């Protein structure tokens, strides 16, 4: 009886606005994330405009590796959205495949980033080697933590899909996707800010 009562509490959901509650929650979370990365990027741009010698330091970054990593992350966004499309069409096999690919691409991004960091540190460009490097490691590090979080979430979803637990809650693929694409957008700006320009 009590258990049923508790269940009733959990199951009863309302959506006054017509927007699913989960989606609303993720978007509120993303709103605060936008300000976080927006603020950090602003601080970087303004510090760089006010400082000297940043371009010389930035020139030591490897543009090919950065480009490759951008490509990896862009592609993982595609696989993520294809997983969502498969979920909506009721294609569990597609969901599994595309989610697994997304997880692998996310891991690939992290591994490439790890190699990049270690080669930079090996060349003496540690976080304390200059203002640019401090920002570089902080920004890419914070972003990589977000990627890691996304990989974990996507992997859990993949496991759920594998065990057939995702049936009836396919919308979670969309929610995880919103976060994943946001992380992708952050990188879309970090790449030119750190690697390409000025």
């Amino acid at each position, binding site marked *: 009886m*009590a*258990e049923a*009562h*508790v269940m*009733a*509490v*959990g199951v*009863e*959901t*309302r*959506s*006054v*606005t017509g*927007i699913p*509650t989960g989606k*609303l*929650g993720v978007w*509120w*979370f993303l*709103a*605060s*994330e*936008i*300000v*976080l*990365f*927006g*603020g*950090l990027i*602003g*601080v970087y741009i303004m*510090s760089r405009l*006010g*400082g000297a010698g940043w371009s010389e330091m930035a020139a030591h970054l490897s543009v090919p590796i950065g480009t490759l990593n951008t490509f990896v992350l862009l592609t993982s966004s595609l696989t993520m959205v294809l997983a969502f499309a498969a979920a909506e069409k009721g294609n569990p096999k597609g969901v599994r495949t595309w989610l697994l690919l997304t997880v692998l691409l996310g891991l690939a991004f992290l591994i490439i980033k790890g190699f990049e960091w270690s080669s930079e540190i090996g060349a003496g460009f540690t*976080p*304390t080697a*200059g*203002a640019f490097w*401090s*920002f570089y490691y*902080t920004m890419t590090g*914070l972003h990589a933590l977000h990627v890691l979080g996304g990989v974990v979430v996507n992997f859990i979803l993949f496991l759920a899909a594998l065990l057939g637990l995702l049936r009836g809650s396919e919308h979670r693929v969309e929610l995880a996707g919103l976060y994943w694409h946001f992380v992708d957008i952050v990188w879309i700006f970090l790449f030119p800010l750190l690697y390409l320009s000025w």
Partner: protein
Amino acid sequence: MSARVEVEEHMGFWRGYVFSTDHKTIAKQYLAIGLFWAIVGGLLAYLMRWQLAYPDTEVPGWGFIGADFYTMLVTMHGTIMVFFVAMPILLGAFGNFLIPLMVGARDMAFPRLNMLSVWTFALSSLVLLISFFVPGGAAAAGWTGYPPLSAKPIYTGVDWGLNLWILALALEFASFLMGGVNFLTTTVNLRAPGLSMLRLPLLVWMQITAAVLFMLSVGPLIAGAVMLLMDRVVGTSFYLPEGGGDPLLWQHLFWFFGHPEVYVILLPGLGIMLEILPVFSRKPIFGYRPIIYSTIAAGILSFVVWAHHQFISGLDPRLAMPFSITTIFISVPFALMVFAMIATLWRGSISFPTPMLFALGTLAVFLVGGLTGVFNGSAPVDIYIHDTYFVVAHFHYTLFSVTFFAAFAGIYFWFPKMFGRMMNETLGKLHFWLTFLFFNAVFVAMFLLGLGGMMRRIANPMQYDFLQPLQPMNVFATIASILLLLGQIPFVINFFWSLVAGEVAERNPWQANTLEWSAPSPPPHGNFEIVPVVYRGPYEYSHPSVPEDWLPQDRPAVPTAGV
């Protein structure tokens, strides 16, 4: 059947009380942690006040206080009161308890996220508590943590204490971000049938505006805190000029958050007042819509005023006047809210139980806080009063009014709903008069000290010739502050005594209109027997069409009037 029994029988102690997903239990957990920290913060204030009145003498019950220990006291008092008392009590406790009840929902939108939020906060509290006991002591760079003082251990002599301080704040922010997601989605999506946004109680409006302000302002500070921690631990120089950094950067990031944060605390406190005033005036709140528009205007303005904390910090002087103007303009929306509260009293039928006394006390105290803000907002006047006790007195008038007066009003008012029993009126009124009297004594004295030029955060005013004639004021403030602390004893007795032996409360002891009063006292898990249907706005008191002087939101079959 009381909910407590049901919870105990069917969920066991751990799921019922500790790892509970029920928003009411979570609210009580926030309240308990917040009240614990309030006691700690109050004791720190006692130590500081003693040192200021009788410098370098033994504090009764403690011992001698050195200048470095005093700096730690200042820092931790501010941190605790803002982040670990005001936030958990006003948002964590009242927001969590009231939002689902007032919107007619069975729980928050994400109950498990809510549990995660309170436990993240508990962890954050633990980290802050540990920071007192690490070698070097707790953080001592001011609650604003300005680098370079905070960026290098050698400047303060505090090493891990300050790192843990940053960590505790980061966890606290994460906790309230999770809470904010819940507040917003619950209000937007889980409202009961018939409950449009313009029928929401104003407290809910205030809580969600606060949640939006918090979520949109805290991001840059989180980034800034990561950078500060990197400076301390990794050795970068984001804020250190010798490595190309800039100390002013932190001030921008801190106050970009810090000023909206003031309203994050203020608005829920005003929301409590706006709920209580109509109930005990037996009148609709005056100007429901103008109040909402004022709230939104104040929220937007709060993002463009932050540099008024930095007028003399080396800020580009051209920036000062725009910020001075926006700051002074923010008096308009708050003036409208105060006028609306006063207009609510007009031709009411006003009674004075304890919650009403505290609500009116909040009004009086907040009025002084708001008016003295104009002095700080005027850039030239700020040149003189910046970093003096005038500022200290000003922000205690604004923040003490909501954190304590409004919170006490809320506790006396919703105690029957939270715990199913009434609080004692005699003790309550005694508590109010002691608090009101001694609060004003303490902080009027501080205004005068500030005008005399006494700087903030100095451990010994007797070291300055120009402050020595003011010393009797310091002694006066200290005696008053000790009496203010002792004045809280009736509350503590009342709280615990009423918890076990208070008069059992009925469903709607104050004859109020909002939805929480149509749930049992205390509400069971799931809150309502049947989900209420809303027919009208929340403040239909003394409506001409009914013989009683109240008309609950969910009572059908009466022609709708007003909002």
